[in-house]
């Protein structure tokens, strides 16, 4: 049984991209003090909208934009429910996931197995074929590089700019931020829409680039793993990247082990990405100080301006 480390790393990065995009979007949402459990629903909406756009227009760019629009549109429902109608965030997020899975299946009824255009790679073939470095660094899709750049951008904005300071202030104490004159509801709605667009882009990458097909329920818990990654990363962008690669590594490795037909039961391999996510979550959250220090203080709390 031989597993080539180079192809494994390449697969790892591809597998981790949708989860990474969804997780970095959710990180911004949670930093603004909102817990949106609808990531799975927004991802699958992005997947179906992206796939339909790719098939109908033949343009990958339009497909990714459609995926972002689909995810953001669904997240707008969550924003209205939780920010204007002050609904419970946990229940609204669950509703978003249940509705998103249903609506996506409905929209995509006629699309399984339809062809989609190939997405061109950003680097020329000569560079991609350099030994070892070529496949690992230069063989990926544009969206993958964008995802990594987005992590850096989110880190920069959250920790080094005034915008980031305002987002964090709203997430730590919405009453104090409101008293300072910041528009809590408006800032949170923008954060929710950003999260929806990121999850949608992740979904579109999954259906258009990675699987190149539309399958009902194809996100298979990726949205929930993205939510777990944010906790795992203790709300730090850099650690989201590490977490996504860890998840991607397990997922890519278990597929190769299944193909190699070693003695490990298939069920255990199928379940391994979820089991590893749980184990890592447990390790991170059992460290009391670390978990408590980084969680946004107003996370999940309803804001109602009384004056």
């Amino acid at each position, binding site marked *: 049984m031989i597993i080539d480390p180079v192809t494994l790393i390449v697969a790892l990065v591809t597998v981790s991209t949708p989860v990474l995009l969804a997780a970095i979007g959710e990180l911004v949402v949670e930093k603004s003090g909102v817990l949106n459990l609808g990531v799975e629903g927004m991802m699958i909406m992005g997947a179906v909208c992206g796939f339909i756009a790719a098939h109908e227009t033949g343009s990958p760019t339009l497909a990714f934009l459609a995926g972002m629009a689909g995810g953001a549109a669904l997240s707008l429902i969550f924003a209205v429910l939780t920010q204007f109608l002050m609904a419970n965030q946990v229940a609204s997020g669950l509703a978003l996931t249940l509705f998103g899975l249903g*609506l996506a299946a409905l929209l995509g009824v006629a699309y399984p197995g339809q062809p989609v255009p190939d997405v061109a790679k950003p680097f020329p073939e000569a560079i991609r074929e350099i030994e070892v470095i070529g496949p690992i660094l230069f063989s990926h899709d544009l969206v993958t590089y964008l995802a990594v750049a987005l992590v850096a951008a989110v880190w920069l904005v959250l920790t080094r700019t005034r915008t980031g300071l305002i987002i964090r202030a709203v997430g730590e104490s919405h009453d104090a931020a409101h008293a300072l004159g910041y528009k809590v509801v408006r800032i949170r709605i923008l954060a929710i829409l950003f999260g929806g667009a990121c999850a949608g882009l992740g979904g579109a990458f999954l259906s258009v680039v990675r699987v190149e097909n539309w399958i009902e329920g194809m996100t298979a818990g990726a949205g929930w793993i993205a939510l777990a990654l944010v906790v795992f990363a203790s709300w730090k962008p850099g650690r989201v990247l590490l977490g996504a690669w860890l998840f991607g590594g397990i997922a890519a490795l278990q597929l190769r082990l299944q193909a190699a037909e070693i003695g490990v039961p298939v069920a255990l391999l199928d379940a391994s990405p979820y089991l590893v996510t749980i184990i890592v979550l447990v390790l991170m959250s059992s460290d009391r100080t670390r*978990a408590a220090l980084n969680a946004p203080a107003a996370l999940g709390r309803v804001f109602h301006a009384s004056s």
Partner: protein
Amino acid sequence: MIRLEKRPQPSQGWVIGGPILAVVLTMIAGGVMFAALGSDPLEAIRIIFWDPLFSERFASYSRPQLLVKAGPLILIAIGLSLGFRAGIWNIGAEGQYIVGAICGAGFGLAFYPSESPLIFPGMVLAGLLGGFLWSMIPALLKVYARTNEILVSLLLVYVAEAMLASAATGWLRNPEGSGFPGSRNLSRHPGTNNPELIDGTGMHWGVLAAFIAVIAAYVLMNRHILGYQIKLAGQAPRAARFGGVSPARLVLLCMGASGALAGAAGLFEVSGPAGQITIDFNVGYGFTAIIVAFLGRLNPIGILLAGMLMALTFIGGELAQLMLGLPAPSIQAFQGMLLFFLLALDVLANYRVKWGREAAA
């Protein structure tokens, strides 16, 4: 300018009126969706909500189905409502349902071909225990490692599905099934079957268990100190802790009870209406039960009615597929819409809507 003013007490009228208005609004929005799919919206709504119960052609088949489908939904939702009331979010009931079914069916098949009357009660206990143990994973992790129970219980659904696939194709596969996936048929074997108790009603042991659970939950929430503690912990966690309510005990109790009930629901399903363990015998009752719990306002009587209504949309949805060719997922989207309207209308119970600018204080 519309303004919201917090009510000191939730409005009793809207607590009951909200769900009813939500159903009406969902019918309107659903009608728009069905029209967009190219069906006559009025006909679609009639086929979903009226024909399964009252049309001469379908009612004889559909009416018993109402209890068959409502039973597991009510049983699971009653368990979930306890935790939801206390702010403990078990959303992995689907996984507990699967594990309960596997354990119960495994117990029954271990004694195959015995037809002893003790087998079925043993299967029920195994189902309860399976669901209970599966829910103890997130519960114990929450208590001892402060891990988020929402994420763990949900992720365990995918682990349970992997187990189900290996059970159906491997260790629980029917040895006389010529290699096809799926266990022996439990419902056609005396001793392991969960029969229809009264002909033509759809009433089976699981439905009876659901009714008992409704009554037990009603007594627990209204007449027992534990019910009071659950409500207190949900509304004022700090006050509950000062009042001597142990959060850890509540987590274990609420998660354990919801897991056990979901496991039992799985066993009743697999030994009755589903008949056998197959790769996809679970049809999402564990997730739909979340909608049922909220639609019923986390109140046992409300859940009973909500379970019936949700079962009706399942049956009506199947009928609409058959009669109008509506795609199957449309009913899932329809159910999701119901939950949205319900959550949106909650605002009316908790806040008063005022027009015009606020008077200067």
